[in-house]
């Protein structure tokens, strides 16, 4: 059977397909971002890297992990936290200086690294933008302080890179009791300083 060409119907279906496609993809991305944001806890500025074993049943969160590069997080025995925000939940700005302060070492061994949105580690003059507990010790009051952005201060300093940075904090050698209760960990507060 030959269906007669109907120009009006053709444009009706075509415009509907385009609008439906855009609406469907857009609503899926918004739903994925919203569910991922609301269903994972926040500790100050930090969000723990998702545990695939615990969240495998939520399709929207799984999509979010895949989309935002969180798959293959390889938690192993490390606990991983990420943030793109300071402690006021303002997005980290590559043109600003931030002071990261912890009341004590968050773990026997910890690493802090700065990543681009593409997940690549920010390059700091030929070295990866990363710092570990082996490089930064507590001050006289037992606090740990790291400076992010601004002028190169040498030890205890990390660059932000050229784009909006993501901070990743990995904690190793944690006591199992503490691992399961991140609220007890002295994670870094992130306070904004001056901006260019």
């Amino acid at each position, binding site marked *: 059977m030959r269906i007669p060409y109907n120009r009006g119907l053709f444009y*009706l*279906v075509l*415009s*509907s*397909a385009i*609008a*439906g*496609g855009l*609406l*469907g*993809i857009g*609503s*899926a*991305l918004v*739903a*994925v971002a919203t569910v991922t944001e609301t269903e994972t806890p926040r500790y100050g500025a930090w969000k723990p890297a998702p545990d*695939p*074993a615990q969240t*495998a049943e939520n*399709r*929207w969160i*799984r*999509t979010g*992990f*895949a*989309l935002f*590069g*969180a*798959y*293959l*997080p*390889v*938690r*192993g*025995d*490390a606990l991983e936290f990420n943030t793109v925000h300071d402690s006021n939940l303002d997005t980290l700005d590559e043109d600003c200086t931030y002071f990261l302060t912890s009341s004590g070492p968050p773990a026997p*061994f910890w*690493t802090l*690294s700065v*990543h*681009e949105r*593409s*997940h*690549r*580690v920010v*390059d700091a003059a030929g070295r*990866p*933008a*990363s710092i*570990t507990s*082996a490089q930064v010790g507590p001050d006289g009051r037992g606090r740990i302080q790291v400076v992010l952005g601004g002028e190169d201060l040498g030890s205890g300093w990390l660059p932000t890179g050229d784009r909006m940075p993501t901070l*990743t904090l*990995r904690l*190793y*050698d944690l006591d199992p009791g503490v691992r399961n209760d991140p609220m007890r960990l002295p994670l870094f507060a992130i306070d904004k300083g001056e901006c260019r």
Partner: protein
Amino acid sequence: MIRALRIRTAGRWFGLTVLLAALVHVATVFLLPQLTMNRVIDRVAEASGHNQLLAVDRAGSGDFVRSDPNSVEALCAFDLLNGPVAIVLPAVADHLSVTAVSDNTVEFHRSGGDGPAPARTLIIATEEQAASIDSPSAVAPERKGIVLIRRLVRRPEDRAAAEAERAGMACSPL
């Protein structure tokens, strides 16, 4: 009459658009994890081939995963079409973690520990293959997937030793 026709046409357009949007929404959410994982697996396989270990440097690993610059990493894109795959891990002097994820984004194996660990071999197999081999194996829910091995480097002076340990790692058909 013409106005009634226009209202009916607009209603049909709206109904069709909402229906298509709902279908695309569901399809996007259900297909994206696997599409994303397959993209990562394909990129690793392009770089090294299937069932081969790919040592990734600090600059390059960000192409596949969010890397830890304080670690030495290796990836293996496995394909169990022709049989199980063996992941050979040498004795290590410090924290080593191994994670295996199938292409449907299911993490089916995770092991690791702080401190030194003896040499071992991890066998990855489908359920059917696992039933026909003697060694205990990690059962992959899908034929394809990826394994990420990460050896922590606590001090810069430990990096050479960690890279030497990585040289002793392997991914190959059993």
